[in-house]
Each structure stands twice: as structure tokens, then as C-alpha cells.
């Protein structure tokens, strides 16, 4: 394929984060998309990265204890 001067999978790995963060310019994005359409190896790793972000987010989410909300409400400034 044209485009990537170095090993295309190495380059694709390098741009994984900016690709998913939509930080690549149009040309870089088109190159990555072209490679991903041809390369099962990279495509799997990109899909995994998306799953991983969701997984970590879900795992790290801890809801606020209800009693803390009451404590915060008590901190409000009393009216006149």
C-alpha cells in the first residue's frame, strides 16, 4: 500500500490513540483507515482499545454514597 513509509502496522499502532480521540488530520486519518480496512491484526487491536476504554470506565465508576449528598446539602448557606 502507499502512504506509510515505515512498517504500516507500527505506524498504525503509533496513531491508535489520536485516531480514537479524533485528533488526526484528514490525511493521517485516511491513511489509518485504509490500513485498517486491509489489516485484521490492527483492526482487532483498535476494537480492543475501544472496548478497553469502556471496560476501565465501567470498572472505575463508584457511585456517591447517598449520605454524602445529604452532608453536602447541609453545607448550603442558610437564607436570611
Amino acid at each position, binding site marked *: 500500500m502507499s502512504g506509510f513509509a515505515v512498517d504500516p502496522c507500527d505506524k498504525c499502532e503509533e496513531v491508535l490513540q*489520536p485516531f480514537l480521540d479524533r485528533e488526526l488530520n484528514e490525511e493521517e486519518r485516511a491513511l489509518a483507515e485504509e490500513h485498517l480496512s486491509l489489516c485484521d491484526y490492527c483492526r482487532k487491536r483498535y476494537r480492543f482499545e475501544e472496548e478497553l476504554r469502556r471496560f476501565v470506565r465501567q470498572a472505575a465508576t463508584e*457511585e456517591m454514597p447517598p449520605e454524602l*449528598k445529604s452532608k453536602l446539602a447541609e453545607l*448550603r*448557606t442558610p437564607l436570611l
Partner: protein
Amino acid sequence: MPGPAVPLELERSIARVAVVGETAPETEARRLAEDARDRVRFEEEALELADQVYRVARRLVSSREEAEDLMQETYARAFRSWKSFQPGTNLRAWLLRILTNLNIDRGRRVQRAPDMQPLEEGDYFLYNKLEESTQAPNPDEERVIERLSQDDAVTALSAVPHDFRDVIVLVDLGDFSYNDAAQILDIPVGTVMSRLHRGRRILKRELAERAVSDGGASE
């Protein structure tokens, strides 16, 4: 957004202000009433965001107790200095800016230049490690992620040095933009991006160590 539900308390307040207005100039009474209304509205809006602020706060510090203390300090300060909030700007980011500053003031974190030596592991590192430990040849990515446990994810995140973890928590967990994260942490946007990039790779390395050492969550 709909106005906060404060009628009785606020009415009483305005009634009291009206009494003051009998002796003070009418404009002063009106100003006090408007102030009271704005403050109540601010406090209601800040409280509505408390769940979201807590989710971020919880991962910026190491324990639930610390997060709870920090939340109370943050809200106490926010309620005291509500007038310094600029309406129309991001209240959630404003609250987290206070929280981050309090966290630093309390000496929980030492500000220093983080280690930026090149990392050996790239972004495919975790997948490759997990794939190696999966019995099936050429497994789907869903099978690969099953090698991780939620507990490992939390432990791995807490093992990421705080300069990098803070950015991951704000952007990936808190859904803040790079600009908001930069303002909350008082660092340039470019630094947010480089720390995020590096922090995610450190997180993957930490996850790989745990998943490989405990044989994976599915076993």
C-alpha cells in the same frame, strides 16, 4: 434548565428582605433578594452535579474517605465563593478545579515533573500479552478482554502515577475536553495530551502485569 425547587425557603427570605426594604432603599432590598435567588440556584445546580464530581474525585484520591472529605471541603468552599463562578461557563469543571487545588493544598500530592522517559511498551502491548495467554488461536477481542477483571482495572488505574492518572480520570472517566482538563489541572493542553497518551500506555502495562500474573479473570 428548569429553575430549582426552592419556593418556601426563598419566599421567606424575600419576605424578610422586603421587611428590610421598608427601612433601606428599595433597590438594596431588590439586590439582596436577587442575590439570594442566584445563590440558591447556584447551590442547587452544584448539588445536582455532585454525583458526577464524586465519580471523578473518587479516582483522583486513593480512598473513599479521602474522596468524601475532599467533596465536603470542595462544596463548602464553592458555596462560600459562589460569586466568583462565571455563569454560562462549565460549573462541573469549576468544582473540580477547586477540588484539585484543595487536594494539592492538603499535601496529598507533591507537584513535580513526571517521568517522561520513553516507554518500551506500545499501544498493542496489552492485547498481545492477553492474546498470548488465551488458549484459543486468533481469538476475538471480546475473548481477549475477558482476561481482565474489574478489580484489576481499578488496581491498575491506582498504580498509574498521579500526574498521568489525573488526566486519564478527567478525560476518559469524567468526559472532560482537553481544554477543560488543562484548566482544571492548570497545565498546557499539549501536556494534557502527552500525559494522556503516556498514562494510557502505563495503565495498559499495569493491566498486563496483573492479568498475566493472576491467570486472567475468566479462570
